[in-house]
Structure formats: structure tokens, C-alpha cells
């Protein structure tokens, strides 16, 4: 059988193949990635597209959790202040219920302090965070509570009962606000009404015990509602941990699916380089051989 006298094309093809293998391996080593174009591994590219979307969403969830946690902490500490104000009001009520031993001047001092507490709680109920009122329901662009002598409680509520829920995970949402109506005038106790009742009772020196009882109920409602913030903050904390571990998983998946294997890439680069050198040497000696060199 006659041999192909013109092997240059074959040699060039095999040199080009070695060169390509070498370049691919070097590119993998340099970028650390095995899948740079969809055609490198179509299934892996599809998985990576989802992986990147999820990782980016997780970063977003972490951001939103830290933002909303700050707001919830402000709300929680605000209610903490409301609770201590109410606590003080209850003590004042008990003091005011001391009967005949209390002078009119003392009672009016108590009334003044109670009115101060009323103002303070009104201020706290209108707390805003980054321009939005946190106890206004979803009508959060305007202060929800305002002093109103015409109202029996002395205060009127302009907010609504709307709540917002926020996605903080692939399939996990939390409610992030309590409307002021539910917090300050919920079922079983109305903060402003019972404060107003106590002020009137101390002023008139009658029915103080009943008024204190009413205030205690309002106090209980507020402390019960406060648990909501603690719960959400705890959930967000847990969610943060779970998202961080999910991110770790995603990073692992990304490496497993799209990452280059440095050891394999390095050895592929070396063996391709060796093969290429060998092919080049073989080519040089082969292409230099011709009978014409010897016909002198």
C-alpha cells in the first residue's frame, strides 16, 4: 500500500489539536472556570444560570433582612419606651388612688405628669424610620396619631389596618409591621382611652381604681403585641443563617458544576505541551527528509 506522501495536513491538524487542548487548559487555570460559554457544557451552563440567579437573590434577601431588622428593632425599642411610660402611669394612678391623704396640689401634679406621659406616648406612636411612620399601617407617609380634644380618648388615628409582608427567602415571607390601631387600641385595652380615663379620674378623685385597671389591661395588650417584633426578629435571624448556608451550598455547586479542576487542567496543559513539542520535533525531522537531499 502506498503511503500518503503528504502528511503535512495531518501533522498540522494534530499540532493544532494539541495547541487547542493546551489553550483550553490554560484558560481554565487562569479563569478557574470550566464553563465560559454555553457550548462548553450546555447543561452546566443552564444550571449555572439558575445558580447565579439564586445566589444574587440570596444577597438581596440578606440586604433586605438587615434593612428591615433595623426598622423592627426601632419599633421594638419604641414599644419598650411606651411600656415603661405606661408602667410609670400605672404607678402614678396607684399613687393618685391614695384617697384623702393626697392633697389637691399633689393630685394636680400627678395629672400634669400623666398628661406629659400622654404626650410622650403620642410622640412614640408617631415614630418614623427613614421617613415612613412605623405604626401607621400602610398609610405610612403621614403621622398616624394626632391630639384631638373632640375625641373621647383625646387622640385620633389616621393610619389604616394594612400590613406589609416581605419575601426574605425563596418561599418565605414575614409580616413586617403592626398597625398602630392594633397596638394602641387593640381588643381588650386602649392606651390613649385608658390614659385619658385615668387623668379624668385623678382630676375628679373618683373611679381611680377602675381607671388603673383599664390602664393595666392596655399595658397587657401592648406587651402581648410586642412579642410580634421579637418573633419576627428571631425569624429573620434564623433566615439569615439559613440563607448564608444556602449561599455556601450554591458556591459549592457553582464550583462543582462550572469550576475548573486545577489539578486536571494543569496536567492537561503539561501533557498537551509535551505532545505538541513532540509533534513539532517529529514534523521537523519528517519534513526535512527527502530523497532529493541525498541526490548530490
Amino acid at each position, binding site marked *: 500500500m502506498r503511503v*500518503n*506522501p503528504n502528511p503535512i495536513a495531518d501533522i498540522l491538524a494534530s499540532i493544532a489539536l494539541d495547541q487547542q487542548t493546551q489553550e483550553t487548559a490554560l484558560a481554565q487555570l487562569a479563569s478557574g472556570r470550566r464553563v465560559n*460559554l454555553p457550548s462548553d457544557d450546555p447543561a452546566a451552563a443552564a444550571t449555572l444560570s439558575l445558580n447565579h440567579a439564586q445566589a444574587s437573590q440570596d444577597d438581596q*434577601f440578606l440586604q433586605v433582612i438587615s434593612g428591615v431588622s433595623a426598622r423592627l428593632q426601632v419599633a421594638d425599642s419604641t414599644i419598650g419606651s411606651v411600656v415603661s411610660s405606661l408602667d410609670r402611669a400605672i404607678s402614678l394612678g396607684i399613687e393618685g388612688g391614695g384617697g384623702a391623704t393626697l392633697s389637691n396640689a399633689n393630685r394636680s401634679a400627678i395629672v400634669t405628669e400623666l398628661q406629659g406621659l400622654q404626650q410622650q406616648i403620642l410622640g412614640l406612636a408617631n415614630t418614623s424610620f427613614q421617613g415612613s411612620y412605623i405604626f401607621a399601617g400602610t398609610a405610612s407617609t403621614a403621622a398616624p396619631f394626632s391630639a384631638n380634644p373632640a375625641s373621647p380618648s383625646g387622640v385620633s388615628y389616621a393610619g389604616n389596618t*394594612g400590613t406589609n409582608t416581605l419575601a426574605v427567602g425563596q418561599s418565605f415571607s414575614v409580616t413586617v409591621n403592626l398597625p398602630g390601631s392594633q397596638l394602641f387600641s387593640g381588643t381588650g385595652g386602649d392606651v390613649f382611652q385608658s390614659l385619658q380615663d385615668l387623668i379624668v379620674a385623678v382630676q375628679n378623685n373618683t373611679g381611680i381604681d377602675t381607671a388603673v385597671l383599664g390602664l393595666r389591661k392596655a399595658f397587657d395588650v401592648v406587651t402581648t403585641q410586642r412579642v410580634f417584633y421579637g418573633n419576627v426578629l428571631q425569624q429573620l435571624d434564623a433566615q439569615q443563617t439559613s440563607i448564608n448556608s444556602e449561599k455556601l451550598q450554591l458556591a459549592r455547586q457553582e464550583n462543582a458544576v462550572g469550576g475548573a479542576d486545577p489539578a486536571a487542567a494543569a496536567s492537561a496543559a503539561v501533557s498537551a505541551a509535551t505532545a505538541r513539542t513532540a509533534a513539532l520535533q517529529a514534523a521537523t525531522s519528517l519534513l526535512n527528509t527527502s530523497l532529493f537531499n541525498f541526490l548530490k
Partner: protein
Amino acid sequence: MGSLFSSLTIAVGALQAEQGALNVTSNNVANVNTPGYARQRAVFHEGVPVELPPLVFGTGVVFGQPQSVRDDILELRLHEETQQQGQFDAEVQQLQQAQTGFQGTNDVGTQLTNFFNSLNKLSADPSSQPLRQGFLTAAGNLASSFQTTARSLEIQRTNIDQSVVQSVSQINTLTQQIAGQNQQIAALENVHEDAGVLISQRTESIRQLSQLIDVRVVPNESSISLTTANGALLVASSQSFALSAQVSPSGVQHIFSQGNDITGKLSGGSLNGLITVRDQSIPGLLNQLDTLAAGLSTTLNGIHRAGFDLNGAAGGDLFTPPPVGVTGAASSISVAITDPSLVAASSDGSPGSNGNAAALYNVRGQAVANGQNPFDYYASVVFNVGNGVATAQTESQASGQILQQLTDQRNSISAVSLDEEGANLLRYQNAYQAAAKVITTINELTQAAVNLGTY
């Protein structure tokens, strides 16, 4: 009985034959790098012997017609594989270009993620103007990533259309050339001369044609005809039939052979690769982008209209509604509102409500295109793009290897070996020198014979 003069005639014939052989060798050496050249072999015949009973004398050598060494069946097989290779190479080249729009940091997938992330941000503080603006910017980026990807595919399609026209004119040049070669070959063969060199040229022309289109070689009585695999006539003996390209109602160039549209009937060659990418691959990708853009904008618009903007008014469309029938949705999608306060984030009319923003956000997990959520659908588009390129690459490599083997085989039969020519050169040189020596010797003998009478 032999004579000195008959020996002289034999020696002169030998000189001529060796000269002819040297000529063949020289021609082979000269064409060592000519594409498609098939080496020629010097043919020697023994002269018809002279009978002078009871003796028989040889009359030397006759130099025959040099033969081209070629395996016609193998050449046909090479043409066919060249057609496959031409098609796959064209597909790989075009699809690689198409897939660049589906990777990197500005592709639809990245912008989809950014869009939904900005919605999640907005949900946390729905009345914030900067966040509303951020959401509109993300929506704008999503729309423009759809547009950019779709438009670059459309531009590529237009460019391919121009390549189709160029290919048709290349095909016509080649078929004209082959018809001319057929005529020359027939002219030589009619007077019983060897047309080997011309046949080599024609074979090379057919190989070039095979890169462009699926050619079938049909031998006829004295020549060959060329048709496409589907039977459209390209060359009949010395006449060529030009293909023509005409813009079809669908806006792309269709190819006609003698009035018949053969666009969808090709089965190989780079022309078919171009047409496949132009008429199937790219429209397929565009359709997937359109489906996603239309599904996403329709779903988001429906939800957006159900909500309320910052002023408590009912929301309008978020994106411009997709065209009826989906086609063109990706290249025409844009954000319908520019005023951030018109973003309908609220579900109850109050500015602080995030109910509708949350509903819009939930679209990320809803079936919007072919029963899949936007991320899963886009991932399947990425898979399809990559798989198209990878499949074409694999086919091109496989066809390339077969072509390489066939070329090796063809070369082992037809290519010029310089070593062989060198050896032949020595043989013919020695034989020539020997024949020359015979002439010198006969000359001396003749001198001797003439001088016999002088003593």
C-alpha cells in the same frame, strides 16, 4: 535479422521514451503542491516485435499516454464529506456568534435577577422614591437586554442573508467554470488525447463547489452532469445552469433553480448551513426570547394594573404590551412608565402598602412562558443555545475526521511523492544514459564497418 541501423532506431526510441518519462516526472514535481492534482505515471509499452522466421526481434520501447492515478469513487466520497463539513462549519461559526448574547453580565438572565431584586428592595420600603426609580431603571435594563439580544440576532440574520447571496454567486462562477472544463475535456477525449490534467482541475472545482452546496456527480456518455442532491440541475455537460437569489415574501433571500424554489431542499454545503441557521436556529432562539418577553410583560402588566400608584390611582401597564402573536416581543419591549410615583406597588391604595410589589415579585416563581417560571425558562434557553453550538461542533469534528481520513486515502493514491519522483528521476536518467551509450557504441561500430573498406 537485426542490423546496426535497427539497433540505432531502438536506441533513439528509448531516448525519446525516457525523455517523455522525465517530462512526466518533471510535471509531477512541479505540481507537488497543486491542490487536487493527481500524479501521472509514465507508461512504457514494448514495441511490436518483427518476425523474420524463424527469428523474432524486439523493436524497442513505445512511450504510451501518461496516466493520471485517481480513484473516482473515492473522489466522489470526498465531495460528499466536503459538503457535510461545509454545512457544519458554517453552522458552528454562526451559532458561536449567536451564543455570545447569552452569557456575561448583561444578558437577559442577569437583568431578570436584577429586576426581581429591585422589586424585593422596593417591597421593603414601597413609598421610597429612590427605590421606585431603582425599580424602573432595573425594568428598563431588563427591557433593553431583551432588545439587544433579539436585535443582534436579527442583525446576524441579515448578515447571513448577504452571505447567502454571495454563496450563490460563487456557486454560479464555479458551475460555469466546470461547464467550460467539461467542454475542454470532451474536445481532448474526442481526439483520444489524455485529459488527466483537466480532469484534476475539474475535480478540484467540484470539491470547491462541494464546500458550498450539495453536489451529485452524474456521469453521462462523454462527460459529467452536476445536480443538487434534490435533483436541481447545475451543470449538464458543457452547459451550466445558474442559481438565482430572490427576496421571498418572508423577507429573506430564497434560492431558485430554473424557476423552482430549492431553498429548503438542500442537504449539505455551507449554503445549507447558512440557511439552516438563518431559517431555523436564529428564528428558534428569537421565538424563545419573544415567548419569555411576552409572557413576562403580560403577567407583570396584569398585576401592575391591579395595584395602585403612590397617589392612590390604579396602575397602568408596566411594559408596553407585546405584539399580538408574540413575534417581535423581545425586540420591541420597553418600560411604559417613566414617573417613579406611577409604579403600582400598593395593593390597598395607601402609599406605604407593598402588597402589589410583593405580588409582582412573586412572578419570579410563576409560570409565565411554556408553563415555566422566567428563570427556569431562561435556563432552558441557555441550554438550547449551548446545545446547538455543541452539537454542531461535535458533528463538525466527526465530519472533519472522516474528511481527514478520506484525504489521507486520496493522497496515498494520487498525491505526488517527491521521494518516488526522485527515484524515478534516477531510473529514467540511467536508462537515458544507457540508451545514449548504445547510440555511441553503434556509432563506433558503424565507423568500424565503414572503415573496413579502407584497409
